[in-house]
């Protein structure tokens, strides 16, 4: 296939609240190519998870995907599909793994039962066939003694094991697209590395694409080839992973990278981006990041920036693309001392 596997255009997902509609995802567009790993990063509340749930059409009412949004998967428009055909896609063509595997597993069934259920839902496999396929999947995900483990209940397994079970469930039908929503956040660092390695290995074997949702830039650097940075319901920067780390353009991306502690760098305190993500019911006017941005000037308050192309495969939703001299000027003033940073904030 030459075209993208998944193509999201102008996705808008809103939730009605007493304070007016919360525009959790507000005009997001991106593509995922076959066998590609795309990272989706951003702080909590910026719309990452809502984006992924929208792709699977799992937004709970009263939340809804607005008309005009388009999600094409393998050439099929998902948003107009009837529920029965959508169900045939969920779990078989697009799978999802969740952040907290303990919460995502039904406590009253054995894990083998739950993995086998996927085959029972999507194929005509008998109970016995489904079970043996489940055990085989558990072996593939690196679970030792899978035949024995399959008969255990979720609470009897460790966090890493449970996440492997979730992965086994998600990959049972060898889906072309896997959405991994913070797959390693709830795990120990050593287990994190193992799970990421496992995902990479299975990706090679199955030949699938991964949409990796995370707030951890370390995870992105290790696994993704392309990165989408989300802020306040919008994609604010899109770039290849190397470019993003070497030459981030959007001030929000800069801030995220600066907040990551680096080895061998002596720092009294971790740097943070001041403030928090604003409420989805009232995004700031103009650039949604302007109230937290060190470079912001009057244009940022007045004018909502489009996605400017910065270079090959790099886009940024920041007016600095048109007025790059401001970044240089800001750096010069902030280097002179405290006065610099305060003027930058006041403008």
């Amino acid at each position, binding site marked *: 296939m030459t075209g993208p596997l998944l193509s999201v255009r102008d996705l808008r997902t809103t939730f009605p609240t007493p304070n007016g509609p919360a525009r959790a995802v507000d005009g997001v567009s991106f593509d995922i190519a076959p066998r590609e790993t795309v990272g989706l990063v951003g702080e909590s509340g910026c719309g990452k998870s809502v984006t992924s749930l929208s792709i*699977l059409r*799992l937004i709970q*009412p*009263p939340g809804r995907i607005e008309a005009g949004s388009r999600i094409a998967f393998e050439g099929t428009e998902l948003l107009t599909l009837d529920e029965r055909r959508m*169900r*045939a*896609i*969920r*779990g*078989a063509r697009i*799978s*999802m793994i*969740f952040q*907290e595997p303990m*919460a*995502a*597993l*039904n*406590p*009253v*069934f*054995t894990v083998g039962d739950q993995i086998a*259920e*996927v085959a029972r*839902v*999507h194929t005509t496999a008998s109970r016995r066939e489904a079970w043996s396929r489940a055990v085989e999947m558990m072996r593939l995900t690196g679970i030792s003694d899978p035949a*024995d483990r399959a*008969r*255990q*209940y979720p*609470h*009897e397994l460790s966090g890493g094991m449970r996440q492997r079970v*979730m992965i086994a*469930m*998600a990959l049972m039908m060898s889906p072309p697209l896997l959405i991994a929503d913070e797959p390693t956040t709830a795990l120990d660092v050593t287990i994190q590395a193992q799970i990421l390695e496992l995902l990479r290995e299975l990706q090679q074997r199955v030949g699938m694409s991964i949409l990796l949702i995370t707030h951890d830039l370390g995870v992105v650097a290790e696994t993704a080839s392309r990165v989408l940075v989300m802020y306040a319901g919008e994609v604010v920067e899109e770039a290849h992973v190397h470019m993003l780390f070497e030459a981030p353009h959007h001030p929000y991306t800069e801030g995220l990278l600066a907040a990551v502690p680096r080895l061998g760098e002596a720092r009294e305190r971790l740097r943070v981006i001041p403030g928090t993500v604003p409420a989805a019911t009232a995004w700031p006017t103009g650039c949604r990041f302007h109230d937290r941005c060190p470079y912001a000037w009057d244009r940022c308050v007045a004018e909502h920036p489009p996605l400017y192309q910065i270079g090959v495969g790099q886009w940024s939703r920041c007016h600095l693309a048109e007025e790059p001299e401001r970044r240089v000027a800001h750096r010069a003033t902030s280097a002179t001392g405290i006065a610099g940073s305060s003027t930058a904030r006041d403008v």
Partner: protein
Amino acid sequence: MFSWLLAALLIGGVCWGAARWRVAPAAHPGPWRTAMTRFRSQGPAMASVYLLVALVVVTALAPWLVSFAPTDTLIAASEQAPTLTHPFGTDFAGRDVLSRVLYGGQVSLPVAFLSVLLAATIGTAYGAAAGLASERVDGIMMRLIDAVLAIPRLFLLIAVLAIWGNPSVPMLILLLGLTGWFGVSRIVRAEVRALRGEEWMMAADALGASRRRTLWRHVLPNVLSPVIVAATLGVGNIVLLEAALGYLGIGVQPPTPSWGNIIQDGAQALFTVWWMFVFPGLAIVLTAMSFNIAGDALRDALDPRQVGQR
């Protein structure tokens, strides 16, 4: 005399069997197994289960245990105090009270079981439907329940039976079942609402499970334990309620004996014919108490917060 020996042997045998009965220890005990192990470790609960099993067996075997039919009238021997031939005495018509109590159990117990089964089924279906429905529909369904619950159940039954008159036993079961499911539906609805927030419900959707499959595989097994507890406690209640209706003369109609109407038969001379209310009363109290104790123990055993304890 022979019948008493048989009864004693039977009760003893059942208790012995139940005490010896053991589930083979599983390598990975599931939640149900764990709960059963916890339940079985509670002395009073097991005692009440043995008692109930014995009661059911004895009433079921009534034809072989008693030498008088419940409707045999021995006019010469009316209103006799307990003797060896009539261990529970006789009533005003000279009918053997022991026989009537045992045969009465054949009516009272199935009435209780079946009406609770009906109530639990309707309540679970209604509650699950409301729990899975949209906010609006759920609101309407639950306000309806609030409205019906505002009418006392006994009052409602008396009103209906006063209009209807002389209900047959199946009719009585239907009536008790249809007026008994409101509480269960509230419990189930609350459980389902809570389950909807669970991530694994979302995960089941994400894997492509259909609504019906989600309901059967994921919702019902998880709401079953509160329903079982409510139903167990409910049986005790229905036994009392049925007795109350029988006593008021609007329950099971004579000459068919039930625990309630036997007491009614002796109500005119309560203080002289004490055996007329002591023995059926004992049957009622023991049954209701046993179901309550067992229900409470089940509640403790099935409580997920107690996983790992005991």
